[in-house]
């Protein structure tokens, strides 16, 4: 059997086809304050969020587009009281539903309601295997214990569980224990995601950037665990960009397979796209989703390969990584249309590597994510 994504690549005749998945960021509210949060630094307030009625309409438009998977995300999607209603509608539309949650506010009753509504999969993020560090990173006391309980409830209902471990300089030493924890909690999949430097994480680069040694060790730990746990635990490993030689095919290519909807209904090619100055995004409040997918200026801006500069334009890998991440090019080079500097072929690659080394020796002090534009960690 082939993977759908494998069959979808590359179709030179078209810059885009039918999207596979949508990340519905239904709210930016969250009980945690992770310094690496991928949400924009300027968070959208509750008063700006799409209403239940608006979401119910948009879910129909999503299904009509041919989307297969719907990820309910945030912020913390549980912060919306109508999550069950939205999941039920998505399930009725035959969408494969996934809940991406910090799980600290999950209750058994709510999980029952979600399962009843037809939820297919749960992904719980973890900050650390150790209570004190988890508290320090997420800014909420007792979060780890609640996540453990929530994971057990998920498994008790025979829902598949993915654990999402966001790794950085201050917790990478825990990777072996993190893998053990995933097994303990009954996860079928562990996502070891090195922080990607957008949104709040970009702000916190100095506190998060790993050292090259840490990354070396992490790759070895993951390789060994994959071999040992074959058939028991799938481990997805997201390498850190700044030390890689080749960039990631961000979102499988700009505007190709996946898109985001922000709490207020803006349709984004990726969750960090708003960090790119000068891009105009369209809202589901103003246009039908199908129109936005085909015609939105932001969606079309970096689609396909026609926009590419050298060295991408004449590169053999352009249909594999689509030139890398536009948000990263924008953040590091102030030019969203440049080759991702994470790529070793980029003329600016060495600079990025040097910068990463410098950040990896930075201060451990965080700036916490909040609606007031960030709060520095006390002390330090």
């Amino acid at each position, binding site marked *: 059997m082939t*993977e759908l*994504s494998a069959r979808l690549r590359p179709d030179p005749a078209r810059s885009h086809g039918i999207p596979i998945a949508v990340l519905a960021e239904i709210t930016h509210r969250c009980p945690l304050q992770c310094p690496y949060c991928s949400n924009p630094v300027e968070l959208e307030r509750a008063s700006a969020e799409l209403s239940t009625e608006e979401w119910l309409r948009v879910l129909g438009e999503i299904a009509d587009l*041919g989307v*297969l998977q719907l990820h309910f995300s945030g912020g913390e999607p549980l912060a919306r009281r109508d999550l069950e209603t939205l999941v039920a509608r998505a399930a009725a539309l035959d969408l494969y539903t996934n809940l991406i949650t910090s799980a600290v506010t999950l209750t058994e009753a709510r999980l029952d309601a979600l399962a009843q509504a037809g939820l*297919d999969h749960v992904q719980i993020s973890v900050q650390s295997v150790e209570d004190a560090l988890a508290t320090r990173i997420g800014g909420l006391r007792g979060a780890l214990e609640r996540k453990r309980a929530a994971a057990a409830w998920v498994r008790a209902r*025979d829902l*598949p569980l993915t654990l999402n471990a966001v790794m950085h300089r201050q917790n990478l030493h825990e990777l072996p224990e993190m893998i053990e924890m995933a097994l303990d909690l009954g996860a*079928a999949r562990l996502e070891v995601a090195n922080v990607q430097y957008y949104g709040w994480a970009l702000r916190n680069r100095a506190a998060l950037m790993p050292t090259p040694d840490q990354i070396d060790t992490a790759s070895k730990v993951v390789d060994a665990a994959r071999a040992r746990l074959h*058939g028991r635990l799938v481990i997805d490993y997201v390498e850190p960009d700044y030390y890689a030689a080749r960039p990631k095919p961000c979102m499988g290519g700009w505007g190709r397979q996946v898109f985001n909807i922000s709490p207020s209904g803006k349709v984004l090619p990726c969750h960090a796209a708003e960090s790119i100055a000068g891009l105009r995004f369209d809202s589901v409040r103003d246009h039908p989703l199908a129109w936005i997918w085909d015609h939105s200026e932001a969606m079309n801006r970096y689609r396909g390969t026609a926009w590419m500069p050298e060295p991408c334009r004449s590169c053999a890998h352009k249909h594999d990584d689509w030139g890398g991440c536009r948000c990263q090019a924008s953040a590091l080079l102030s030019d969203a249309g440049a080759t991702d500097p994470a790529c070793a072929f980029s003329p600016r690659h060495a600079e990025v590597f040097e910068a990463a080394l410098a950040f990896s020796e930075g201060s451990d002090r965080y700036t916490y994510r909040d609606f007031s534009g960030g709060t520095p960690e006390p002390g330090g």
Partner: protein
Amino acid sequence: MTPDSRPALPRFVKLRFDRARDTWLLLAPERILIPDEIAVEVLKLCDGEATLAAIAATLAARYDAPEPEILSDITDMLADLEAKGFLRDREAA
């Protein structure tokens, strides 16, 4: 997987015809597979009641093909899906 296994898709794995793409799909957490025609026929018979042997017999009759060969083919295919967590054996569970 043995001839006595009663394979079934877990609740969270969905076999579905996708009209937008005009193809059958197998939807699982974080993965989407495209089963070929034979696989679709086999998976439709995996209801947790029928044994693998019975499924092979059904297919042998339907396609007028030798049963042992079919049994061995579908055992491999379903064992592979089981290892990926996309299929369960009711008997073993």
